[in-house]
């Protein structure tokens, strides 16, 4: 699939899965999509290895946009991207946008075959000024 992939990273698996459900039901199946949430012990949190696995599942040669919720989701996502390393890391962007709205909007943009840059720009339109 050549559409940009979307990865959803939340501290809560319920939030992450629910957000992914919204993307699937509202936008459709044209975009590679993966989510992860919760720490390895089953509590709230995020895990670098789970994020890396999610990026793998949603991988597209057009790139991957990651939507995160709070602090650790972002820093762990940054770490996951760093561990994946170049050249693929150059095609992964962590979006500065609200997780649910950003995921739906980014996926809508991606479903039309938009570039990673355009997908990220659409999500960023939602960021507080």
């Amino acid at each position, binding site marked *: 699939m050549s559409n940009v992939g979307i990865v959803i990273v939340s501290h809560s698996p319920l939030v992450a899965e629910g957000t992914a459900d919204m993307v699937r039901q*509202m936008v459709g199946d044209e975009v590679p999509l993966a989510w992860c949430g919760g720490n390895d012990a089953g509590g709230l949190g995020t895990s670098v290895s789970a994020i890396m696995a999610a990026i793998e599942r949603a991988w597209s040669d057009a790139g991957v946009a990651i939507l995160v919720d709070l602090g650790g989701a972002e820093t762990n996502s940054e770490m996951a991207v760093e561990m994946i390393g170049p050249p693929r890391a150059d095609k992964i962007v962590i979006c500065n946008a609200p997780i649910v709205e950003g995921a*739906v*909007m980014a996926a809508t943009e991606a*479903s*039309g075959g938009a570039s990673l840059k355009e997908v990220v720009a*659409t999500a960023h339109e939602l960021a507080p000024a």
Partner: protein
Amino acid sequence: MEDRMSNSVGTSVLITHEVGLHARPSVKLTKLAKSFPADVEIALAPDGPWIDAKSIVKVMAAKAPKGTTLHLRAAGERAGEAVAALKALIERDFDEGEDHARSA
């Protein structure tokens, strides 16, 4: 924008969908608009302001409720087809009405 749209084709259509142009309908409208090469715009009034129908953020922000007459215009390749397809989608209540069984 005005220059590009000087030769546009346009129409208007009443939104009858219960929740109006909210989240899911906005996604459908935007996706359909994106499937055409033409520039496509919508407005809540005949004299604008015109919104890029391919921008999901802008379309959703318009928050057009049920009963709104939506104005459509397009210019460029397959513009007429784009306007007709969008109008038809809105008239079908975005394929979500109770009278429209999903084909998928």
